[in-house]
């Protein structure tokens, strides 16, 4: 299964990921409509952190959803959003401990990463390579390997 892997140490905080995500899924640019978000609390903006859905196999968002609108799909190997079921209660956004779900400002429904059908536009436009799209059994193992390489 493939995941978007974040290496925050490489992120320069340009937010191209937000821009291209919004453009590709919503046909306009607005960072508030992006499935990925850069949080940058550094005094000189030196600490950007990309936040994006981790496609949990036991997703807290799904467990919190009263309408069966979010669940892990073993075939697609990601958490899928079923718009028809959504009641726009916002429980999913509260439940995600990574803050990876944004609510649409007009519909109140979750704005959630769907990996762009297997070719994430955020990854394509990340020249810093802070975002990569990788085949992994376990995200933690990838990060441990990277740590050893440093």
């Amino acid at each position: 299964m493939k995941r978007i892997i974040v290496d925050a140490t490489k992120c320069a905080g340009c937010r191209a990921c937000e821009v291209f995500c919004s453009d590709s899924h919503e046909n306009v640019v607005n960072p508030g409509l992006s499935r990925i978000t850069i949080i940058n609390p550094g005094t000189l903006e030196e600490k950007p952190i990309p936040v994006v859905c981790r496609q949990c196999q036991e997703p807290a968002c799904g467990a919190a959803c009263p309408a069966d609108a979010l669940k892990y799909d073993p075939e697609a190997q990601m958490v899928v959003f079923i718009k028809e079921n959504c009641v726009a209660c916002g429980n999913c956004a509260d439940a995600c401990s990574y803050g990876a779900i944004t609510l649409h400002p007009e519909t109140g429904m979750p704005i959630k990463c769907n990996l762009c059908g297997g070719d994430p536009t955020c990854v394509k436009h990340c020249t810093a390579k802070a975002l990569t799209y990788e085949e992994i059994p376990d995200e933690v193992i990838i990060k441990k390997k990277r740590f050893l390489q440093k």
Partner: protein
Amino acid sequence: MSKYSAYCGKILRVNLTTGAITEEKLSDEVLRKYVGCNGLGAYYLYKETEQGYDPLGEKSKLVFFTGPLTGTIFPCAPKIGIFGKSPLTAAFMDSYAGGHFGAELKFAGYDGLIIEGSSSKPVYLWIDNGKAELRDAAQHWGRTTTDTREAIKKEIGDELVRIAVIGPSGEKKVNYACIMVDGTHAAGRGGLGAVMGAKNLKAVAVKGTAACIDVADQEKTRAIVEDIYQQIRTDKALGETLSKYGTTPATQTNNATGILGTRNWQKETFEEADSLSHLQMAEKLFKKNISCFNCPLRCAHYCEVKGGQYDGLKTVKPQYETVYSFGSLCGIGDLSVVAKANHICNEYGMDTLSAGVSIAFIMECYEKGLISQEELDGIKAEFGNAEAMITLLEKTAVREGIGDFISQGTRKMSQKIGRGSNAFAINIKGLELAGHSVRGYKGMSLGYAVSPRGGSHQDMRHLPERGGAFDRKTVEGKEKLVKDVTSTTVIRDTFTYCAMLEGNIGRVGLTEKHLNIINAVCGFGFDLAELQEVADRIWNLERCFNVREGLSRKDDVLPERFMTEPIPEGPSQGMYTPKEELDGMLDKYYALVGWDQNGIPKKETVQALGLDEIVQNLK
């Protein structure tokens, strides 16, 4: 809503005297004539101010504008342009900063701001997604730029707001005070920070998440953007050099060509250039890339100084212009000192170029015996004396002692010192020179002379001549080169893409590339002749602003040093631009652009560009 895409279609007008804040629509007709940032800034500033107004007075205005590309998927176009009459030059000034402020302003729903009047007490402007208010800034007055930003973020309760702010130098109206944007970027040139300080406006804070920016032709825009990304991925200069070194490879390039301003331009090679090199900077200063909004180039750098006197200093890494102004120009070969000087300028809010050139001027005056150690508060201001440079800079930042004198800039200082010091007061129209030689490029000689700002390297560009595409040593055809290059820089600042993208889009003359971008993004349906007219209109309007302020051919002049002293050494030895040579180029240039022999745009030129509606005092 505008009928053209990529605009919010409205601006915010803030009257600091009355406290009134109002929204205004941008008219489609004005958008078509002036297009964006540089164009709209010049238009509103000219239209709404009177001849001879005091830049630090009640009638002064400060205009902020974004461009149409900002907030779209178009990369490397984050700029916010700030416009006003400069207290340093008493002429038109536009200064641009990167960062995220411009995009945030658009996402908050505004293409621009017009700040007028002045507040009786310190305030800051807080813009929150279509709402705006003035807030008390008494507690922030006196604070450095970083301290102010952090305090405002805390007060608002959101660490992700974007802030443009002045430091103590702006409050105290240092003639070259800057406006810091987002901590890493500066609208540096021309003292617009002093204009903000005179208005008692400490900062503008913005939160924008509401407005959606669309483009006219999504498929074409996407195709143009993918082409640029493809180049960034494959071109070493764009894709790798900038992210590793920013603009700093210029130090060694210029030194090797013999055009690196050294010891107040007494020489143009610096024997310690290697210790200021981009490689040394990468090793001793670089910590991490920082990026402007939607810019994959990442040329800004967070810096932690390793070694030297200021070991451990955490700051923003200087770019080339600052390495020139505080390095070679002051005879300093120590990067930690350059980083410290840059840090002082960022925190107090001063232009690193004018500050460095002003100190280099003082150093030459001291070495020539025109100003004594006693007059300098006991400081031995010799070239290469790092401690003296830092002390003078700290005094200048708050106008203490001799710093009050230095804070006026080289033109006013030389007028007071007299005794021939005017010959080496390195400014054009009062604006201190950037780090690109006047004498070493004939095109730059002419370009600097006719620049509305003066000593700026962002009107005329040095790169076509430095790169060898045009012979830097000949005057032939330079009038045409200046016209073609300045057309692209005006359009660059109007669309608001960054100078780093000039190589991709084109530096010499407007082309289909410029045209395709603006038509795809905004849907103007321009042809190339119409786009050229937009560029000419803006360039002429800036000129008309200066003519209204009394400027003419007499001000299209170079520092005397560059017209009388040949470069004494190095690979460009012997080069200079005598007054007769400059005059010859000016004659040809004025004829080419439709100005009379006194450098005043002719009535028919102004009329043909549709400027006669707003330009006053037409002869």
